[in-house]
């Protein structure tokens, strides 16, 4: 499976032999160039094929450029196509030789066969050599007026290519005006679509310098034009429909009647077999109704089913992209999807980044009625072979517990996790129980009974260990052996590598001391001594602080370290709602898949040269790097 890295670089071993073969080809082509013998086309075709296949492998065959051009005088269309392909690939590096091709391409542009006219025009406009653009204007003009739509389709895109090679030539030849005429009048919808594509790009490019272009660009969003496109939308190809829908998103309707008209017109697009059309339509619907809260909710209901179908029907690649969009919607309006939670159940052989998205959605849609079932499902994943997912699902159970008011059943489940005797399950569950207790102190009795049975030796992960220690400190009055466990942990101070754990240990010992002074005194002394000698600045400072506090006044110290606590009502979310709104505005774009607004990954300013590659590392695990919306760490 693992591909050898060298093959894709360049033709390393075959390069020398490739060179001699290229010279070989060169001489053979030269022989054929002038020949008019019957059957010469077939031998040419074999040679051309060889040239193209070398080109494909990555061998530089630009040296046969002259011979290829000489051989191009033929009526065989496949030969022509191969020649066009070759020329298109090498013209840019051989601008002088490219001049040689102009002649035969221009001749082909006048061929009887519309297909040859179109193909020749396409190659001519793909030459991409700046000093040859003068030869392009004439054929393009003719192509735009051609009576065959195939040629016009090619010519319109040709204009766009010309624009990118030489802006002034394109504008001076007045092509935008011709395109505009075609846009409004051509019978063929593909021509119209291509005009739209080309004009959008051209006017976008010109808008910064020219007031006219700005006006033209705004005119694309005028009511008559939008309606002209919308009324014909069914005639457009599916890709062109995406283009039109993308334009409609930017249109601002005058009143709500207009909004409903547009939505009625587009409703059946949601049942299109092409996922790109469905998503583009969904975007139009969502954006049109942003200001109408009730309708906006109905839109969610309406687009829900098509999206869910796309997830289950498409290839895994499609379903991932759709799932990312669904994820966005679920996060915005979980209640709309609350009845569909079964769609987000993970299948065994799904890749883990899909499972991760699904887990987040399951967490979001859980409500009073579905919680039990969802948690049951999540618990099955906890025994999953895929350990990261097992961890995620335990976290998901915890998150659901933190959302719900009725946590009775969930607490039981979490406590069961603690009894599963798998270290990573125990670790995750401990962290959760800690968070749960911060929100629902009333459960402390049940939880502590179970947590008390866990031997601290079995907990190795710093986060889990810190959680366990926090609970030992916080509930030391309920756990008979809390001081002794803390004491033994303190004795192993030097073996504890995580500063976080040591900080928690310090605080826990302090808390325990205030509740059960005689039993803890020894541990406290040892902990403070070890803390003062600690090389970690924070640990050292905190130990010093506690020490001085105790020296100053023990009651004050108790008030500082062990104040009465209020239950936490909401834990902080890591992604701000502003960012989420930005992503929503960019529905149906890459941002949704990355779960980041586009400015964060397309703007150069927002990413340093290195930051981007860091992101890539985290992409491997899932799509998002910053959403493990975990709880803010307790101090």
């Amino acid at each position, binding site marked *: 499976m693992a591909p050898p890295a060298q093959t894709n670089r360049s033709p390393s071993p075959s390069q020398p032999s490739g060179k001699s073969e290229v010279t070989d080809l060169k001489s053979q082509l030269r022989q054929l160039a002038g020949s008019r013998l019957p059957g010469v086309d077939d031998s040419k075709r074999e040679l051309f094929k060889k040239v193209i296949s070398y080109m494909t492998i990555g061998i530089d065959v630009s040296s046969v450029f002259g011979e290829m051009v000489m051989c191009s005088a033929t009526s065989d269309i*496949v030969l022509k196509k191969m020649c066009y392909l070759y020329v298109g*690939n090498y013209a840019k590096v051989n601008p002088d030789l490219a001049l040689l091709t102009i002649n035969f391409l221009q001749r082909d542009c006048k061929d009887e066969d519309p297909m040859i006219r179109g193909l020749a025009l396409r190659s001519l406009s793909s030459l991409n050599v700046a000093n040859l653009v003068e030869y392009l204007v004439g054929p393009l003009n003719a192509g735009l007026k051609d009576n065959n739509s195939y040629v016009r389709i090619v010519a319109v895109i040709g204009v766009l290519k010309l624009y990118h090679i030489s802006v002034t030539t394109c504008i001076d030849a007045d092509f935008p005006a011709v395109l505009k005429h075609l846009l409004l009048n051509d019978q063929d919808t593909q021509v119209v679509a291509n005009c739209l594509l080309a004009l959008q790009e051209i006017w976008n490019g010109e808008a910064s310098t020219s007031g006219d272009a700005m006006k033209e660009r705004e005119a694309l969003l005028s009511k008559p034009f939008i309606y002209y496109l919308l009324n014909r939308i069914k005639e457009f190809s599916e890709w062109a429909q995406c283009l039109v829908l993308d334009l409609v998103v930017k249109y601002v309707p005058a009143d709500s009647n207009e909004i409903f008209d547009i939505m009625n017109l587009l409703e059946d697009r949601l049942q299109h077999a092409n996922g790109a059309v469905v*998503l583009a339509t969904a975007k139009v619907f969502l954006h049109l109704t942003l200001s109408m809260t009730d309708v906006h909710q109905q839109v969610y209901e309406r687009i829900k089913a098509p999206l869910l179908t796309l997830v289950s029907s498409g290839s895994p690649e499609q379903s991932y992209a759709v799932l990312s969009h669904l994820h966005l919607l679920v996060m915005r309006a979980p209640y709309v999807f609350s009845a569909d939670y079964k769609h987000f*159940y993970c299948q065994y052989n799904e890749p883990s980044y899909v499972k991760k998205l699904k887990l987040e959605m399951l967490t979001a849609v859980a409500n009073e009625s579905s919680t039990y079932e969802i948690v049951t499902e999540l618990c099955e994943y906890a025994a999953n072979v895929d350990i990261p997912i097992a961890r995620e699902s335990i976290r998901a159970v915890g998150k659901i517990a933190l959302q719900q008011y009725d946590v009775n059943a969930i607490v039981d489940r979490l406590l069961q996790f603690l009894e599963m005797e798998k270290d990573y399950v125990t670790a995750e569950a401990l962290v959760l129980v800690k968070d749960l207790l911060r929100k629902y102190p009333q459960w402390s009795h049940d939880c502590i009974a179970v947590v008390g049975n866990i031997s601290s030796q079995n907990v190795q992960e710093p986060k889990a260990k810190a959680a366990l220690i926090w609970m030992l400190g916080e509930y030391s009055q309920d756990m008979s052996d809390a001081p002794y466990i803390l004491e033994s942990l303190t004795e192993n101070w030097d073996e504890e590598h995580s500063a976080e754990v040591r900080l928690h240990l310090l605080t826990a010992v302090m808390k325990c001391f205030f509740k059960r002074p005689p039993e803890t005194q020894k541990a406290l002394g040892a902990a403070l001594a070890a803390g003062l000698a600690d090389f970690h600045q924070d640990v050292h400072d905190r130990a010093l602080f506690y020490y001085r506090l105790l020296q100053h006044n023990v009651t004050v110290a108790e008030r500082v370290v062990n104040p009465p606590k209020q239950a936490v009502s909401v834990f902080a979310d890591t992604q701000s709602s502003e960012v989420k709104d930005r992503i929503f505005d960019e529905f149906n774009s890459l941002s949704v898949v990355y779960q980041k607004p586009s400015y964060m990954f397309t703007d150069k300013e927002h990413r340093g040269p290195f930051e981007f590659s860091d992101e890539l590392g985290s992409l491997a695990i899932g799509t998002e790097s910053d959403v493990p919306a975990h709880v803010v760490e307790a101090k």
Partner: protein
Amino acid sequence: MLQCIFILSDSGEVMLEKQLIGHKVDRSICAWFWDQVISQGDSFKQQSVIASPTHYLFQIVREGITFLACTQLEMPPLMGIEFLCRVADVLSDYLEGLNEDVIKDNFVIVYELLDEMIDNGFPLTTEPNILREMIAPPNIVSKMLSVVTGNSSNMGVTLPGATASCVPWRTTDIKYANNEVYVDLVEEMDAIINRDGVLVKCEIYGEVQVNSHITGVPELTLSFANPSIMDDVSFHPCVRFRPWESHHILSFVPPDGLFKLMSYRVKKLKTTPIYVKPQITSDAGTCRINVMVGIRNDTGKMIDSITVQFQLPSCVLSADLTANHGAVTVFSNKMCNWSIDRIPKDRAPALSGTLLLETGLERLHVFPSFRVGFRIQGVALSGLQLDKLDLRVVPSRLYRGFRALTRSGLYEVRS
């Protein structure tokens, strides 16, 4: 807007490179891509959208062939992915299957196709029927023809009529001596059965596939006996929306040949045709496994191609599995495959055996999920029934055929 498409073989070779705009994308992007694949493994290969340091990549993998497209601009992701899927579909249709050799042998055709399918990075014609008219597929008939006539061009002589017609998926001048239309209901059942044997999710995803060979421009209508059971439908562009809205009738002018007319979902099914009951008990370093398979609801039709697949947890050292019916294979990656095919009349198939666990492990902590495969011919398990198929103008000879098939989709039983 896509800037470049690469077609890569499984060994990492660039089989084809199609630059779409003036701005050339360097091949080194493929090297970067493979470096990532090697370092991150298969989960990376399955991601459809990837950010590289210079480009955004779309990838799909079909039959070991990777289709990779690059862009530098924000664009609808589904557009890139859908397009690549179409390219893959069209190629496998043209070349009658996809593999490294067939693409290398026919790379000229692949170039020709890509040339028509996308221009300047924007998808153009992806309708297979139209492409077929512009570029002839490299089949035996055309090879024969080229040998006999000496004309070796595989190009259509004329431009397709459909590019100018308002029914873009069909040409106007199709003629058949025998007019035939076949309608197939193909359903896939997705189900999850949890540890306690409860059916937690059971859904059917179905497609109506039509294969039509009819002269001229036929107007077809297709109706169902019970359309209300379908939850969500999506249509081929040829289906008219109004008749479906008002009467739940499919009215359409079909493309020529085989195509997917519509797809639908049926939610919340109550039963599955077969049951698979795994039992795993473990104690003192060994583990007993026992799996029973049987028919739950007799649909009256033969269920065949039954398979049960499961992945043994990594803590299992060795497995000794036997079955009273069918063949059991344990692969080196600890994947087990039990192929039963048909359930015999006289006894229920059962697989049993022992698993030896890693030393030091008393009990099994992670349990495998069993993936079940089956196929039932002649019945659509959702209960969807075709009512009738009509033509507005019935040609002299018309043969109509209906078939149904249900097979398992993602059907898993957890233990």
